[in-house]
């Protein structure tokens, strides 16, 4: 009798598994809003943004019926694991720590690090001799911090900040010559003010942002990777990107 029950439950589990693996006709995708311009609501309440439109295009490609779920950031990974939704497309950077718990698709975008300075700054940030003795501000622990520490440690003096606001204050107050910060952050907090400019070409860093899924849903990951690859190739991706960004975030 016991063996029969075990056998039956195995058969059931396999059936359930095969149903899961067969087709993904319904995908629930989570976003944390607002995070402009990636995902936010328009004044009339419609969910939109770069990642939202990319998700729509991806679902069309997969011929799947997608439901978009709003989820606050700190409940993202727990919600995914608790099956409240099947995928996260909310600017989640791929890190080894996260990859231990969840499955990432191939990266679909990466915001570059940007150099920003006051208008009177005229040094070439790639010229290490000219940069010698300059003071560079970064946010502690970001990929920008790692980049500057590795490339320019010992040449420039590096100041590390906890928040971007404090860093911008010190750039204004002339304690910093130049800051190296996530491009969208710099664009919003620094370039929006008078007297500041971009001080060099944006630099692509890190492993980028990927779609996050449960580890067991390998089939979904394969389908999503294939769809994203197609969108990147056939121009749909570029079309959406150019709608929201003046610079290249494709990956």
């Amino acid at each position, binding site marked *: 009798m016991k063996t029969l029950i075990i056998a039956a439950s195995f058969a059931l589990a396999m059936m359930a598994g095969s149903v899961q693996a067969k087709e993904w006709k319904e995908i629930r995708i989570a976003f944390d809003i607002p995070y402009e311009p990636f995902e936010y609501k328009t004044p009339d309440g419609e969910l939109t943004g770069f990642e939202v439109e990319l998700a729509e295009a991806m679902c069309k490609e997969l011929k799947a019926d997608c439901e978009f779920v709003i989820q606050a950031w700190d409940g993202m990974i727990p919600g995914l694991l608790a099956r409240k939704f099947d995928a996260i497309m909310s600017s989640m950077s791929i890190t080894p*720590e996260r990859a231990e718990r969840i499955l990432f698709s191939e990266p679909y975008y990466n915001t570059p690090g940007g150099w920003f300075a006051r208008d009177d700054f005229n040094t070439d940030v790639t010229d290490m001799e000219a940069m010698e003795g300059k003071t560079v501000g970064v946010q*502690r*622990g970001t990929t920008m*911090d790692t980049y500057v520490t590795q490339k320019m440690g010992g040449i420039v003096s590096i*100041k*590390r*900040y*906890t928040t971007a606001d*404090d860093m911008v*204050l*010190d750039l*204004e*107050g*002339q*304690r910093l010559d130049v800051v190296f910060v996530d491009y969208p952050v710099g664009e919003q907090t620094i370039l929006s003010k008078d007297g500041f400019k971009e001080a060099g070409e944006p630099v692509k860093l890190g492993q980028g942002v990927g779609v996050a899924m449960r580890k067991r849903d390998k089939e979904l990951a394969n389908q999503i990777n294939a769809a994203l690859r197609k969108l990147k190739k056939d121009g749909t991706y570029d079309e959406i990107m150019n709608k929201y960004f003046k610079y290249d975030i494709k990956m």
Partner: protein
Amino acid sequence: MEQWIAGLQEQFPILTPATLMQYWEGMVTTVQLVFLSLIIGLVLAVPLAILRTARNPLVCTPVWAYTYVFRGTPLLIQLYIIYYGVAQIPGIQETFWWTVFREPFYPALLAFTLNTAAYTTEIIRGAIVATPAGEIEAAKAYGMDWWLRMRRIVLPSAARRAIQAYSNEVIFMLHASAIASVVTLVDLTGAARNAYSNYYAPFQAFIFVALLYMMLTFILVFAFRKLENHLLKHQKSATG
């Protein structure tokens, strides 16, 4: 010593030579900052405490207002105002003052000094006020003038009464100095934050720095106990 470091690295794998060097530099900064602010604060606090006990309201009110403001607001806010606020004064960058305020060390030193001077002023004032009236009357009977009385009777006996409260202030100051890292100064806490963000190992980075703070605290406690034993010798029983 080498064995000790090897054992330490087993417990804290993040303590590479580079990280240890950062912690060491952070410790030097913390000790400099705390030591200098305490010394300058004490030198300021003694005359301020005497002024604070004056009967003339024109003399004692400004001192009261100063200690009230600096004891009534968080040190973090004072540091923010001095560090970020000063940089916002139009034209400050072109003056001599900018050479002082550009780097985070002097703004932090200024904030810490003003803060500890305010607390120490109140500690010493309390000790001065508590001077037994008989001691002062006796000094007057000997024909001592105000200055001599202050120097020989009031301040030495106030120092004995203030020493225990002051040793607490010193330890609080050491711990309060941890906030220096918010203005980009790499003190002990700043070094720990850097180590944390490099290795994503909060326990190791912060427990190690906590041990360092504890070590510094024990040194302070020990030094103050010696000092107390010396100053309060007369209170010991003859047999003990």
